């Protein structure tokens, strides 16, 4: 178990390095840097600009800059944001927390809703239920998240009952914890709902089809024959046997949620990673772009690690190197 975990963690770290290298060398193609904006303030002369450039270290060669960055990032220092003049990690950390604040509950709630519903749909195979299920999941799958987010925003604006963006109202003081928490949760409502609606369908479908597969097996029929209660049968036995592809999907749904949250955050002005990332690309803020992708990759890898542990707990065959990693087999 430990070796398996260590192997996965090592794998993840290697991936991180690969990602960072790729990103860093890609960015050298970009032409502008943030100092050009100040150029346009007609009261600044050239010498001042040159001095500022030297201060921000933009004159050194690329490989030197990268090695510098690797050394310091191991120490936890991810560089300085050119635009904000603050350490990158300090800039990103609160943002990633806000993103997790959206995606965490969305992940939890969407699975909480989808699993029972999917199991029920698998267990009750009537033609009208099947058609309703197929039709509604098709529809949900086909509505793009971009439209969902815009509709959510429209709902907030036209009804006036929901906050249209942002994370908290200015009238709530951060000092009073309970009212602040309630305020933030109120602002979370629409973005999280949009995320959930967008991610329900694939989970529903997979749960239903996996459970249906299990229900077809001999061991399940045997358990049925033993006279076990319906509930125990479905939720303890069938679900556990169906766990393998579901856990894989769990890892995938983390990835999808993190990815979709970029769009939702931008459209609904939620101060998470999405808007920061978009802004830093537009601002050519080198270290923030790299740092953002690194952070979000770390969280995805962490999520996948959790999924791996869950999978191992449910199906220890995974750690056996003789058996191929089921995830490379199931390529969705």
């Amino acid at each position, binding site marked *: 178990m430990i070796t398996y975990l260590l192997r996965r963690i090592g794998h993840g770290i290697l991936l991180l390095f690969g990602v960072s290298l790729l990103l860093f060398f890609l960015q050298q193609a970009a032409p502008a840097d943030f100092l050009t904006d100040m150029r346009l303030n007609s009261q600044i002369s050239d010498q001042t600009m040159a001095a500022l450039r030297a201060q921000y270290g933009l004159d050194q060669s690329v490989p030197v800059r990268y090695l510098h960055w690797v050394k310091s990032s191991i120490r936890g220092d991810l560089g300085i944001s050119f635009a904000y003049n603050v350490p990158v990690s300090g800039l990103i950390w609160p943002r990633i927390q806000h993103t997790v604040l959206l995606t965490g509950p969305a992940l939890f709630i969407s699975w909480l809703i989808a699993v029972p519903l999917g199991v029920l749909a698998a267990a009750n195979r009537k033609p009208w239920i099947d058609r309703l299920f197929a039709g509604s999941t098709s529809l949900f799958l086909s509505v793009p998240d971009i439209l969902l987010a815009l509709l959510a925003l429209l709902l907030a604006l036209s009804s006036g009952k929901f906050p249209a963006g942002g994370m908290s109202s200015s009238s709530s003081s951060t000092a009073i914890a309970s009212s602040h928490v309630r305020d933030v949760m109120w602002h979370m409502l629409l973005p999280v709902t949009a995320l959930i609606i967008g991610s329900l369908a694939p989970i529903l479908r997979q749960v239903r089809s996996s459970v249906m597969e299990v229900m077809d097996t001999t061991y399940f029929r045997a358990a049925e024959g033993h006279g076990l209660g319906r509930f125990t049968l479905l939720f303890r036995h069938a679900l556990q046997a169906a766990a393998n592809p579901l856990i894989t999907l769990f890892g995938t749904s983390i990835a999808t949620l993190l990815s979709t949250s970029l769009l939702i955050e931008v459209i609904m002005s939620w101060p998470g990673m999405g808007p920061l990332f978009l802004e830093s690309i537009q*601002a050519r803020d080198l270290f923030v772009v790299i740092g953002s992708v690194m952070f979000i990759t770390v969280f995805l890898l962490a999520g996948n690690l959790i999924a791996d542990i869950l999978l191992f707990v449910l199906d220890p065959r995974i750690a056996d190197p003789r058996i191929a990693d089921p995830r490379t087999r199931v390529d969705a």
Partner: protein
Amino acid sequence: MKQSSCLIKFAVLLCTLFVSNSFAAASTQEEVLRSSAEPGKPGGKLVITQRSEPRTFNPVPAADQTSMGIIDRLNADLIHINRATQKTEPSLAKSWTMSKDGTQFVVKLRKGIKFSDGAPFDADDVVFSFTAYLDEKVPSVHRDLLLVDDKPVKVEKVDAYTVRFTFPGPYAPAERAFDSLAILPRHLLENDYKDGKLGQMWGLNTQPDKIAGLGPFRLKQVVPGERIVLERNPYYWKVDAKNQKLPYIDELTFLIVPNQDAQVVRFQAGDAHIVSGLSGDNYAALEPEQASRHFKLYDAGPGLEYNYLMFNLNDDVTSRLPELARKQKWFNDVLFRQAVSLAIDRAGIVRLAFRGRGVALATHVTPGNKLWFNSNVTAPARSLPKARQLLQAAGFSQKQNGMLTDASGQPVEFTILVSSSNAQRAQMATLVQDDLKQLGMNVHVVTMEQRATIDRVVKSHDYEAVIMGLASGDADPTPDMNVLMSNGSTHLWHMGEKSPATPWEAEIDRIMQKQQVTLNHQQRKKLYDRIQEIEAEQLPMIYLASPNILVGAREDLGNFQPAVIEQYTFWNAEEFFWRTPAGNH
């Protein structure tokens, strides 16, 4: 007898005490500045939305509007420009004298004033501040305003409350150069300056108690990405007509809301009390709600922002970019530029991009600049026939399929670059593209990210035409010299000229240099009028339009006076007060 002598002794004692007390008080008596605004009552909180986070609280390197807006509330300058009248008035300097030749500037400071942490203020702080601003090793964006002919101004302490500034030559806008140059606390920053770290101090994550200034507010709390909270500075040296200490507001919060639309929603909901930089569309959307939601909208008229279409007239591209060089034969022809200007539907731009709340421009000086606007120079009325005539005279001809070709038969085709960050400018580009299609020109619009756009215009010169906007820093002509002078660092249409390329550029150079040293306003105005005439004739930039300054505030906010120079809404934040009881906010 004994009783009365006791009484007399007692009275004398009292008198002595009283007199000695007043002497003691007089030596530390604050020399306050009395505001002429309507007196109000203290109390309450104010929330203003800002589009981005400030970069720093340090006045020295700060160059963006957001940072400067907050810094200006925390600090004070020697001489201040009143945004409403656009004229200078005393600030930390209680009086000043200018020598006859315009080079010696002696400033008398207010006595008995303290920084927001209680430390006393005197001439040493002023000398320290200006030394820092002028030091080449400390990259400060304000240095350039203190140079005349590239020579720095000299600062000397005359006594504890008097400072002398010596300009290398007569400098007409001298007084105005001091606006927003914050006086730094020597007792907090001198060591850092000596260690060469001054530029890095006072970043966003600095502890509030390490920052001190002479402004009406002091820093209370920073929540990264969300808000900046300021509180009243108890040591502030301005009072109202009734001798009450300013500011009235207990707490001033800057809420970071990056999206203009989101700002409007917050304002509507009462979350924010002031909203600024409204687009015409948002203004129209808010208008009908004024009564029911208890706020007032203000259209302060045109500001100092000017939007323009500019052709690339740089001459360093001939070998690098031959395509561009070929097209520059058209761009360099003034008849071509005039034809383009005549074809542009400025009224359409004002109507569609600004919803009617804007004004067409003929030069870079907008009608919002009351002191310098030349009312005799007006924007040309749109005339396609006249434009076609000019093009014909310049050797262009329109083919049967409508396409315009030059004298050698090449079709007229070029690209307009525009930044994606400003929706109105992107709109202008699409409108201009359609306008020029009427002349048979095939125009492409390419949107590019703001910084990349600027990089192309300023550094690589790899663009054909661009639509941009600039805002004059001040109503005075001098800050615009970098744009107008042929050797200016932002002489955008033709960067890095060693000498003026055309006779009219030479004329502009001459006149601008003259106005800088002409101390008489009437004479300066005549010179600047001539500049505007040249601009309208020769069209180095084809000026399009200027948006009105559209802002809004809660109706019970007293002393709200929107201006057309930054900061439009809260330049006089120390005078704001709530008419209704503070508990309602």
